[in-house]
């Protein structure tokens, strides 16, 4: 194994972990955003105001 392959392996592992973190973060924020919008719609709905 060469130093280059070793470095590439370390970088690939790190990049995968970071990619998973970003993925989990994005789907979490998207979900929270949807919840917030749904709650907003509910609060402002005519049935609620009545």
């Amino acid at each position: 194994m060469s130093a280059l392959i070793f470095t590439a392996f370390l970088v690939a592992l790190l990049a995968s972990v970071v990619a998973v973190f970003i993925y989990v973060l994005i789907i979490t924020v998207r979900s929270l955003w949807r919840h917030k919008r749904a709650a907003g719609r509910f609060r402002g709905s005519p049935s609620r105001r009545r």
Partner: protein
Amino acid sequence: MIDPLVLLLLTLVIVGGFALVGILLTRGQVRDAEDYITARNTMGLHVATATFIATVMGAWILFSPAEAGVFFGLPAVIGYGIGSAIPLIVYAFLGPRARRLAPTGHSVTELSLARFGLSMYSVVLFVSVFYMFIFLAAELTAIALTFNLLAGIPPVFPALVLPALLVGLATLAYTAYGGLRASVVTDHIQVLVILPLLAVAFVGVIVALGGPIVLFQEITTNAPELLQLTSLPGIYFAIFVAIAITGANIFNQAYWQRFYASRSERVLKRGLGVAAFAVFPMVALAGMFGIMAAGVGASEVPSVAFFSLVLASLPIWLVLLIYLLVLALIMSTMDSLLNGLASIFTTDVPRLGGRLSSRNLLRFARVITLLLALAAIVIASFGFSVLTLFLVADLVCAAAAFPMVYGLYSERLGGVGAAVASIAGMVVGTPFFALAQAPGADVASLYLLSFGLAFVTSVALTLVFSLGRKRYDLGILAIEVQELGVQR
């Protein structure tokens, strides 16, 4: 070394914070035992993905993969990563199958009782509870030992009590209150803490040691065999660990609960798929700490190679961040195990004839959670080496896994046949396991023989016992397995 008082205070703040979040976010959501142990069809994709990652990742990833790296090098590290991902891939098929066969199910023991009867149920109950309890005790032991290592206190009885007690009680507080929902909610936050901190520790150590090129030169000078991909002991270890982890995880009730908590089959499959993709780099990355530690001569005690490297190379503020990583890892696994174990007992009480009202069943579940946590804290306070017990648990799981899973696909496998196949696998694997404990033994080959033979024997006997004419109608499972309080 860090001042023990500072470390204790930090522990209190972190575990208290997680407990508070768990309690606040699940306030008023647990009405009965069904809510407490199942939270049926409530998890969306983001929650499912996070909770599956958190359930797999315990503090063990900072100990075992690094130790494997020190002893067996790169093939073992890659094998450990693949082995940790395989159960999630298996579950991506098994989970939806379980949901279809028993839409109102709760636990693996419950399915085994309905599918096989008392004989195989006894095997599955013993294997599940044994494995999960050892796992629980090992996680708490890990925090007690880590605390003492960072504070420079000898890891003996009285000094181990406090960290184990703090973490144990905080996890118990939100798990006993919010059940599975609290476990899942905190898993989500813990994963968002674990992933970046693992990356930060990795980058921090590599930079502190001079960068990847310097590290490569150190490893090729001091331990060149660790970078050989064709090293046979490393390959043997990789195969053995894949069998051990897959077998053991089949009996981890925390996953079965999450099958039913997922909103749909699609969410379940995608959540498990992403978790499988996430687990491989996380475990392999953790294992690389062992190889790096061996390269720079920081692996005198291989099981704590990760911490030796971190303590030797990182500034104190970064070490404290790593401590947060350890706590998040432990709590994310411990809450899942506590609630999983409680769910086994809670589900089985009514099925085995105990008559409790819905409210009393919830009370029973909480008391069981409390007792299990206290027992685990007591064991952790003594700092026993739980590694051998862990491997024993893995061996019995490896022998019982195939019959259990096959029975959910084949209508011809009977309960007695499944139990005999499981026990025969355990018996065949035990002598080689015992030989591996001898000093100077060829551990990788003997463990591979032990786990490989246990698995192959149980597979062969399961297939032989499935040749009979008697059939079991799998459609009956949906009728036999009912929600709690709707027993037949």
